[in-house]
């Protein structure tokens, strides 16, 4: 473990959350169709369990995880499977991705997940992980990593520390804030389930210092649960303090090794939304078929936090927000710092969709014309990974893989802080995002080449050895003949 003194880098930027947190969570309108991409979680795409024409009921499993890292998918409504075909999805803008399309019959006939466990605390941690997997639970903070896979890889002898991430540092996104405010009991229930599944003894819920109402609600819920294993930790509202590695440093004062995982230092980090989803699955037998989505920005009439079924089209959420304003210009999934730009709104909500920003010119601060880097170093002072973005930029053109590696291009978390402060308006984060895969490919192929070279040298050495042995034997045979004459 690398000791760490204080938070470094990051930005204090305007949160833009007041508009969407004014009203309580409400349910999004039901949609006529739900589109469920099979690869909406990290890892491998799920394998369909239904065929076109099948009738499905709400909560019914419709796809099972592929072996390895993958997740279950459930029907968000009762109705008919009308297509299993490639459809455009917000996380794969390049090409359509295989999706199950369900038409909604409006009856919401529930499927009884008979496998549900009656007393979660009585089953073994391994069974608990399996049970969480069957709920289709994935990380709801944005990466959608299958939760059960993360828990299984984190199981250790003396039980890891559980860290629940309620530090929602990205501007505009407020789904976790309203969740903590209104459903703090769910989060605490989920925390206790996770503690059990991990054999962990301590849970820290991290929350930012600018959401007092959510803090109050969570404290009350923890007190009500009378569980001394759970504590609340207030962290400064600095972007990107809610990044997994940054938060672990802030809360525990240790850094996650660059080539390791939080589990390597005995920490498991889960989003508060994930904990609440686990509570709904274990307690209410509702698998993950809906999540809270923040709809906000000056491009939509009314901002809101909507309990939204997975597969709902973005256009339907915008309609729930009163439609676009005439100032609408850009659609973003996520926040203003790291959010993905979307070319249109005919895309389904996936498990990773935490926020939709309908941005007008008021929300966007467009970049000016790009100027050359003046090496001022403003970027290095805000980099939460302690990189020198100005030097990385220098080594992009001409591309110098050795220096890029030395300067830690692969440690870049793409938070965009460097972009934000750059006086030369250089799109640094985008350049780094584009170049990282190039460098990774190069390092991989170099490793392969090194291995091939090592094999080649080993083979040559072996052949030489055999040759030498052969010659030695020949010499041995000849020696008796030569021996007497030379003496």
């Amino acid at each position: 473990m690398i000791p760490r003194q204080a938070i470094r880098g990051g930005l204090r930027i305007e949160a833009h959350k007041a508009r969407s947190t004014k009203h309580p969570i409400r349910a999004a309108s039901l949609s006529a169709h739900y589109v469920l991409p099979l690869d909406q979680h990290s890892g491998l795409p799920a394998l369909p369990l239904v065929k076109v024409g099948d009738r499905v009921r709400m909560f019914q499993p419709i796809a099972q995880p592929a072996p390895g890292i993958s997740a279950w998918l459930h029907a968000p409504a009762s109705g008919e499977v009308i297509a299993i075909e490639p459809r455009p999805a917000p996380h794969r803008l390049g090409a359509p991705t295989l999706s199950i399309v369900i038409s909604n019959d409006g009856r919401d006939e529930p499927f009884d997940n008979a496998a549900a466990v009656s007393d979660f605390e009585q089953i073994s941690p391994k069974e608990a992980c399996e049970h969480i997997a069957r709920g289709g639970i994935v990380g709801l903070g944005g990466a959608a990593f299958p939760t059960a896979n993360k828990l299984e890889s984190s199981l250790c002898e003396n039980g890891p520390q559980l860290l629940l991430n309620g530090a929602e540092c990205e501007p505009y996104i407020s789904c976790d804030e309203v969740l903590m405010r209104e459903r703090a009991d769910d989060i605490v229930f989920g925390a206790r389930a996770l503690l059990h599944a991990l054999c962990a003894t301590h849970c820290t819920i991290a929350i930012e210092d600018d959401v007092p109402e959510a803090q109050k609600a969570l404290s009350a819920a923890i007190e009500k649960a009378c569980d001394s294993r759970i504590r609340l930790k207030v962290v400064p509202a600095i972007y990107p303090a809610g990044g997994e590695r940054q938060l672990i440093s802030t809360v525990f004062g240790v850094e996650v090794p660059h080539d390791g995982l939080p589990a390597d230092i005995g920490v498991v980090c889960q989003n508060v939304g994930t904990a609440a989803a686990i509570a709904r699955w274990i307690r209410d037998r509702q698998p993950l078929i809906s999540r809270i989505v923040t709809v906000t920005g000056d491009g939509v009439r009314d901002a809101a936090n909507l309990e939204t079924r997975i597969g709902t089209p973005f256009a339907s959420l915008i309609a729930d927000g009163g439609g676009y304003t005439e100032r609408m210009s850009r659609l973003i999934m996520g926040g203003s710092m790291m959010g993905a730009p979307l070319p249109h709104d005919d895309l389904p909500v996936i498990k990773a969709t935490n926020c939709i920003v309908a941005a007008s010119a008021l929300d966007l601060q467009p970049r000016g014309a790009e100027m050359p880097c003046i090496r001022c170093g403003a970027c290095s002072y805000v980099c939460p990974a302690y990189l020198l973005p100005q030097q990385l930029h220098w080594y992009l053109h001409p591309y110098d893989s050795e220096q890029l590696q030395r300067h830690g291009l692969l440690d870049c978390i793409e938070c965009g802080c460097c972009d934000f402060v750059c006086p030369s308006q250089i799109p640094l984060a985008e350049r780094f995002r584009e170049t990282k895969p190039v460098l990774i490919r190069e390092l991989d192929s170099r490793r392969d080449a090194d291995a091939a070279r090592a094999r080649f040298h080993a083979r040559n050495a072996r052949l030489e050895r055999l040759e030498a042995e052969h010659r030695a034997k020949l010499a041995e045979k000849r020696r008796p003949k030569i021996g007497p004459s030379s003496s």
Partner: protein
Amino acid sequence: MTFGTAPAPHVVAHTGVARVMRIVIYALVPTVVLHVAFFGVGLLVQIALGSVTALIAEAVALRLRRKPVAPFLTDGSAILTAILLALCLPPLAPWWLIVSGTAFAILLAKHLYGGLGANPFNPAMVGYAVLLVSFPVQLLQWLPPAGMEIEQVKLTVGETLSTILTGSLPSRLTWDAVTSPTPLDALRTNLNMGMTMAEAQAAPIFGTWGGRGWEWINLATLAGGIALLALRVIRWHIPVAMLSAIVVCASFMYVVDPGAYAGPIFHLTSGASVLGAFFIATDPISAATSDRGRLIYGAGIGLLTYVIRTWGGYPDGVAFAVLLMNLSVPLIDRYTIPRIYGHAR
């Protein structure tokens, strides 16, 4: 509905190269005002000549390099170069000094290396070094500061202008009457003549702490520098390291032999120590880039400045010290990469 897309982040701060350069220029205003108060309006004429030359040279270079002219001409960097160079020249220096120095700085030191952001050497200091090596006599002819007990020669604005443009003084004056060495130059000459430090510093050109007038100009420069620090346009590492190195070296030698070496206060209040520390060495383009690198870079400039002043062939050493450390930047940067998150020390 379809929308345009742009990569994240979707918001950036209100900033810009032109804004940064503008702030640095504003921070030089107190220095310029006091300079004019002590040495007359010559500086303003020099700045005007230098700025016009800088803009023309910049435009020509951009044209030749087929680069967009407008964004770079308005970024303020060329004018800043001209102002810094003008501050280094004697206020009555003939026009062709500032014009050729600025043109050299912009065309050769800046654009030949790739323009804004790509110059390994500080352009203003390259311009100054070229002039100092080529025309040492003209560059060391300073004016006596206002407030000296000797009879004060005052030039009108018109006389100043005609002196700079024609190179000859109004008929009522002679060069001997209007020129005086800089304090660092005078000290060196006096010490070389075998005077003790006390005798050497008794000349009317010296004030309470350092060079008369220069004390106040340096104080104004310090105020501007602190403003830059407060606005986070520059960071503390380079100025603090450079001034500390000068103070440490000067104190050490002063303690060793106070009769032969000027004290640290004299070194800070005479010459270009403060201007160099806050406005010249901090030019980020030609400086080291990490905090640790900047400490080494600043300390190196301070050390070299002191060495050149004390034992070198020129009265002030800031320009050469900066250029020598510019030369070492790639090496410093290579060995001062900060520890990355999650990596061992």
